[in-house]
């Protein structure tokens, strides 16, 4: 209960940070770290709330290569394929490699993708929380996240979204190394090779 209260406080604080106009991109989080490269997606100062209800800066994922995609949980058609695609890449890796790769799926539907909704998908799809993060940004940050990942989307009248589906590979500093739009359980070999290279 205490931790729930704490995460609510954090979420409120995070919300307050996001609406500050000056927070478009703030100073690097830790003083001991070198400045982020200019082409890092972590230049975008956004907070993500994950399937466990924890809110933290996107750039806190710095340090470990990541597969990133955008999705939404109520999606019937392609989004399950995005998860399949992430799993398919993982399957091609050794245990040691798999442990070094994070997978972050960012929701384009934060109004409905609460931690509970995200957790439900994570459980249903048996996504190991050590690797998989499902998270929602603040509603006003969705277009910016999509912008740095070059993902296009539109909310449809019936609550679904029309969107490009892509897996984007980031290095530890948040620089885009590779991208694939081939979705499904058969992984894109070139993309898998790029992932392996990033994990070396």
């Amino acid at each position, binding site marked *: 209960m205490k931790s729930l209260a704490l995460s609510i406080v954090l979420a409120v604080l995070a919300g307050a940070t996001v609406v500050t106009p000056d927070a478009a991109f703030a100073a690097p989080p830790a003083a001991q770290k070198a400045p982020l490269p200019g082409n890092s997606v972590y230049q975008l100062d956004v907070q993500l709330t994950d399937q466990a209800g924890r809110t933290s800066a996107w750039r806190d994922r710095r340090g470990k290569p990541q597969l990133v995609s955008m999705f*939404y949980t109520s999606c019937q058609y392609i989004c399950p394929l995005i998860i399949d695609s992430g799993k398919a890449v993982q399957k091609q890796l050794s245990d040691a490699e798999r442990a070094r790769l994070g997978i972050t799926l960012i929701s384009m539907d934060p109004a409905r993708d609460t931690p509970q909704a995200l957790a439900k998908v994570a459980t249903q799809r048996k996504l190991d929380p050590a690797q998989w993060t499902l998270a929602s940004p603040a509603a006003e940050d969705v277009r910016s996240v999509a*912008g740095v990942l070059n993902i296009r*989307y539109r909310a449809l*009248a019936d609550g679904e979204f029309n969107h490009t589906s892509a897996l984007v590979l980031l290095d530890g500093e948040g620089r885009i190394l590779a991208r694939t739009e081939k*979705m499904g359980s058969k992984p894109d070999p070139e993309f898998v090779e790029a992932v392996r290279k990033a994990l070396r």
Partner: protein
Amino acid sequence: MIRVIAAAVLVASPFVGALAGEGSYLPIPSGRFASALNYEDAPGKQPVAAYSMMRTPVTNAEYLAFVKANPKWQRGRAPTVMAEKRYLSHWVGPLELGDTAKPDQPVVQVSWFAADAYCAAQGARLPTWTEWEYAAAADETRRDARSDRIWRERILRWYSRPSNTALPRAGLQPANVYRVQDLHGLVWEWTEDFSSMLMDADNRNQGDADNARFCGAGALSMNDRDNYAVLMRVAMLSSLSAEATTANLGFRCVKDTP
């Protein structure tokens, strides 16, 4: 007549727009509007809520004031992930316009992120495509002049002009029925939802066996295939990424009507 004089005064003093603040936003009343874009999930006329829109695109002088107040958006400081290398490259220095960027010309070479940040700093936002198209459908006397062939041809003439000549000043063209200027005939303009236009690579990849790359339906088609001016805008916006800048792409902001 009063309007003509007011317009003349505004044209004569480029800084009036910047200083006027609230005054440079003009009210656009609500209405129902059939976009030239046809989305199968939202066919026909759609409601448009009232908003207010900047009279002209943001000028170099106005944008210079913004980067002075927000150093992180100065050329050379803004991260390339949010503003590519050409960002403000036509200015002589990060805080100096020079001869190639006159104060009263519309600012160009600005990314979507930069435009978005400018509007946010004004307590405003970028218009949605629908809001832009709705205001841009008007001519001097009518709220929707789009079916008028002569009006269309007048707009199209701009697109046939070579783009390597210097940009005119903002605010020289006749005001439309809302007193808004330069929606056509000066620069392309960012919209908040430019990346909702899913017609570029997506529709071109019809030979791709895996064309099921979208969730849901809602494919984009054109209601009004003769409206070339709008078609070109859509094609251009749908080809851009958010950090991109071009020599003919600027923006203006809107505010919600309280």
